[in-house]
């Protein structure tokens, strides 16, 4: 015998309680998280306002500095450095030549020349490194004049690496030329200080 189901409801019966429970739980969770998030967001914005403003200002300042640096670099490129360098070296060389003391050199030469040796000519040359090389020619009454002069120059700290170029004999007179590096008194004092 088939059982009879009596359904007297106007609409079909549905149990929505699990759905409502889920909706309520989700809503509560969402509301809680949303409040927390809004609070976090405002706190973050408020607390970092100064820092962010500072970052923006620093970045803008850095940008301005970079622009200024590139402007300055452009004007640096407009300077003809090769020509300036050539002029500087030329001017320094000429100032060194002008500052060279011939009186001091003659004083030094007087101390190294023996009685029978006479100075004929002096011709200094100046290198970029400040080295002074002397081209010297002498006349001697004896054959030992050149040796004696070289020995005396070797003993004098103002002269370095003296080296003969020529020696010739005419009418009993010996003429010889030599080159030597020359250190003026200031250079010698500076070298001693460094040592």
């Amino acid at each position, binding site marked *: 015998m088939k059982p009879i189901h009596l359904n007297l409801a106007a609409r079909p019966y549905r149990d929505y309680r699990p759905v409502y429970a889920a909706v309520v739980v989700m809503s509560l969770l969402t509301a809680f998280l949303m409040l927390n998030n809004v609070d976090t967001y405002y706190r973050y914005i408020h607390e970092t306002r100064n820092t962010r403003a500072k970052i923006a200002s620093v970045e803008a*300042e*850095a940008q301005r500095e970079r622009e200024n640096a590139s402007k*300055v670099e452009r004007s640096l490129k407009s300077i003809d450095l090769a020509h300036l360098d050539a002029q500087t070296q030329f001017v320094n060389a000429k100032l060194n030549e002008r500052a060279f003391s011939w009186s001091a050199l003659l004083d030094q030469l007087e101390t190294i020349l023996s009685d029978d040796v006479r100075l004929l000519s002096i011709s200094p040359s100046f290198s970029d490194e400040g080295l002074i090389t002397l081209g010297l020619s002498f006349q001697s009454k004896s054959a030992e004049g050149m040796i004696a002069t070289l020995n005396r120059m070797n003993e004098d700290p103002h002269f370095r690496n003296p080296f003969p170029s020529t020696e010739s004999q005419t009418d009993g007179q010996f003429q010889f030329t030599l080159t030597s590096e020359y250190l003026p008194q200031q250079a010698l004092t500076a070298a001693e200080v460094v040592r």
Partner: protein
Amino acid sequence: MIWREKRILLIILGVLLAANTMFFFTYRVQYQSRLDDLDTRLEAAEQSLAQARQTRLTTERQIQGYRKVEADIAEVFDQHWSTQPKRFTAMVGEVKRLAIASSLNPQSYSFERAEAEARTSAARRGGKNIGATEVGMSFTVQGTYEQIRRLINLLELSRQFVIIDQISLNAAQDQLLTLNLHLKTIFRDDQQARVATNRL
């Protein structure tokens, strides 16, 4: 069936929940690290600023250095060397005056002129001239060693830019020596002067 009927509401709630959860975990949980990030960014920006400023200052100092060198060179060219028309006669007059002051009497003078050359081959390859002319002056005098030393000393002390280039000595008679003196000086080129004037 019941879930499907309410799916729109559930989907909306689900999306809201997911978004808030994500925000929560990225912002709330990592709040400190975000603050630290911001500090790091500030530090990096400050470093970048300091670097940019240093670069600018270094370049500016370089330019100032070059300008100073340019000014110094211009001073030497303008004040000490000047142009040939302005200084040559004064220099010759000064040398003659010093010779007389040393009781020496040069019988003749010779002069030569050459364009000043750059000292380094690299600068010479550059093709530009230095902007100066080198003028040489030679003369011979007879006198005692003391007179010659006095002349050399006076030339060294002269306010004129005179370089003693070479000296030659020969015995003449008794205590007299013959001194052959080669002097040189530098003059700024007129063209250089025109450029300087144009620059002003």
